[in-house]
């Protein structure tokens, strides 16, 4: 075993920092601060324009600094992975994350510099942010001690073949929904696609949770490795739907405000953060299902151990 807890901790910190970065990005959009710094990668021609960090520049500049920090953390994580991790696919996953964060930085710069394509770049930037967050969450999951125990255990769980498909469909649906939400937030499209998306993705998520519940019941209710994230997903989905409605109503009420004000800003940011958390919970669930499915393929049946995971 060449794996250490350090890599797992680093993956956790990177995922946490990425979540903070997502929240900051949502603050930039909700406060209409996206173009407050007209140049990139410098800000007003400098790296540290202290006296100019006022007004909306605070959001945009902080977003850039945290983005650079996340980029550095991802680089460190890759060093850790290529040094300590023996599973090639995990190392490659880390590399994909590194490429994604570099691409995301370039997209952020393009969003600032190429104003004619502002909406397109903003949309892709918003999507890539969630995609990259998903990668960091995935890395944290697959480098976790729990995952390693899962790999080492001689367990088999009988899943209906539809379960992983439902979860993957829910993830894809959620990505589409995040994209539609970004489209509305960046004022490139109306709310209807996002509302219909919410109905569709809720159905997919609920179907996944219902299938997990069925599997957990079949295993005597002791498959907590799946039941816990499923419970989180159900709770987050409810909260997210409530936040979405509240954010939209707040936006409607604020349509004649002279500037972005509370509670519209906080509700919108919370809704974006809720979407990211829902994605993270779905990924945790799906990875664990794949982990257990993998065991089914490679190990003999040892049903009794599974309930204790």
């Amino acid at each position, binding site marked *: 075993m060449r794996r250490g807890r350090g890599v797992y901790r680093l993956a956790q910190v990177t995922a946490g920092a990425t979540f903070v970065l997502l929240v900051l990005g949502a603050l930039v959009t909700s406060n209409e601060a996206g173009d407050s710094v007209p140049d990139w990668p410098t800000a007003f021609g400098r790296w540290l324009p202290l006296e100019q960090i006022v007004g909306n520049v605070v959001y945009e500049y902080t977003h850039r600094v945290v983005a650079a920090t996340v980029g550095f953390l991802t680089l460190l994580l890759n060093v850790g992975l290529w040094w300590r991790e023996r599973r090639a696919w995990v190392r490659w996953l880390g590399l994909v994350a590194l490429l994604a964060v570099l691409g995301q930085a370039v997209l952020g710069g393009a969003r600032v510099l190429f104003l*004619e394509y502002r909406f397109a770049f903003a949309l892709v930037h918003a999507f890539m942010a969630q995609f990259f967050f998903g990668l960091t969450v995935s890395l944290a999951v697959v480098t976790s001690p729990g995952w390693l125990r899962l790999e080492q255990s001689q367990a088999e769980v009988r899943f209906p073949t539809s379960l992983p498909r439902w979860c993957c469909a829910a993830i894809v649906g959620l990505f589409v929904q995040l994209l539609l939400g970004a489209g509305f937030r960046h004022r490139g499209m109306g709310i209807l696609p996002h509302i219909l998306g919410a109905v569709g993705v809720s159905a*997919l998520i609920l179907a996944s949770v219902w299938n997990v519940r069925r599997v957990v019941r079949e295993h005597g209710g002791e498959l907590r490795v799946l039941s816990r994230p499923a419970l989180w997903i159900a709770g987050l989905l409810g909260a997210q739907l409530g936040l979405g409605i509240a954010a939209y109503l707040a936006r409607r009420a604020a349509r*004649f*405000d002279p500037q972005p004000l509370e509670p519209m800003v906080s509700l919108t940011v919370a809704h974006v953060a809720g979407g990211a958390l829902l994605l993270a919970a779905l990924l945790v669930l799906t990875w664990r299902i794949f982990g257990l499915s993998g065991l089914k393929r490679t190990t003999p049946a040892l049903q009794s151990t599974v309930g204790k995971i």
Partner: protein
Amino acid sequence: MRIWKSPLVLVLTLAALSLQCGKKEEVGEAPKEEGAAPTIAYQPTGDEGTITGVVNFTGQPPQRRRIQMDADPVCAQKNPNALSEDVLVNNGKLQNVFVYVKSGLEKYSFSVPSEEQVLDQNGCMYRPRVLGLMAGQNLKITTSDPTNHNIHPTPKNNPEWNVNQPPGSEPIIRSFPRPEVMIPVKCNQHPWMRSYIGVLRHPFHAVSREDGSFEIRGLPPGEYEIEAWHERYGAQVAKVTVGVKETKSIEFTYAAGQAYRPGSLRLMPALVLPCCERGTTRAVAMH
């Protein structure tokens, strides 16, 4: 996998449709009456007429909101009691309505005035809030504030730009090559700062004053469509015939309940500016 495919396909289709709907409003070169190529370079003959008028406002105007400038202490200190300026009504008269000749001048071309129009940043507000320019005419952007600003027009038919203007810096001179009514201008550093620029292919425009009055001088005799545009209440159109050396008077009337719905809150279409929104243009009788 039919079950999960269906909603996704539906949603993606609607999203694509939504973008397509928006596209229709984003494209298009100049206002409709500008389509025909100008044939005669207009030279004043002394027969020109004038259109005067007033913009009325009926009903209870929305209360002006306090602008929170605390995010930039310089702004908060210089303009501590700043109020929103989107709807300014004095004694039933509406200020900051852009009134211009929408059609009737197609056969003429006009030389671009050499004087610049000035847009100043003072107290972290744009002065004036609404102004008109000819396509190609210089816009001189000055700053009277001891803080940083960025000037960011977001046109649909002209190139978009975003420049920083530090305190005490030289004025920025820019122009818009194509006619466009209206171009929103904002400062992303101070998101309450808004201005609107009407760019025309002729010089016949006015902005309603504090008493709601406006005046367009030097019009060649002819039949015109005059449009009034307000950032919150949309556009109205009046038809008027101006005879030789004649002064015609028209009135526009906006009502408190007719505020437009911002595009971002609509169900399907992409962002729709108040100037371009379908259904907000209303014919107005001549007085």
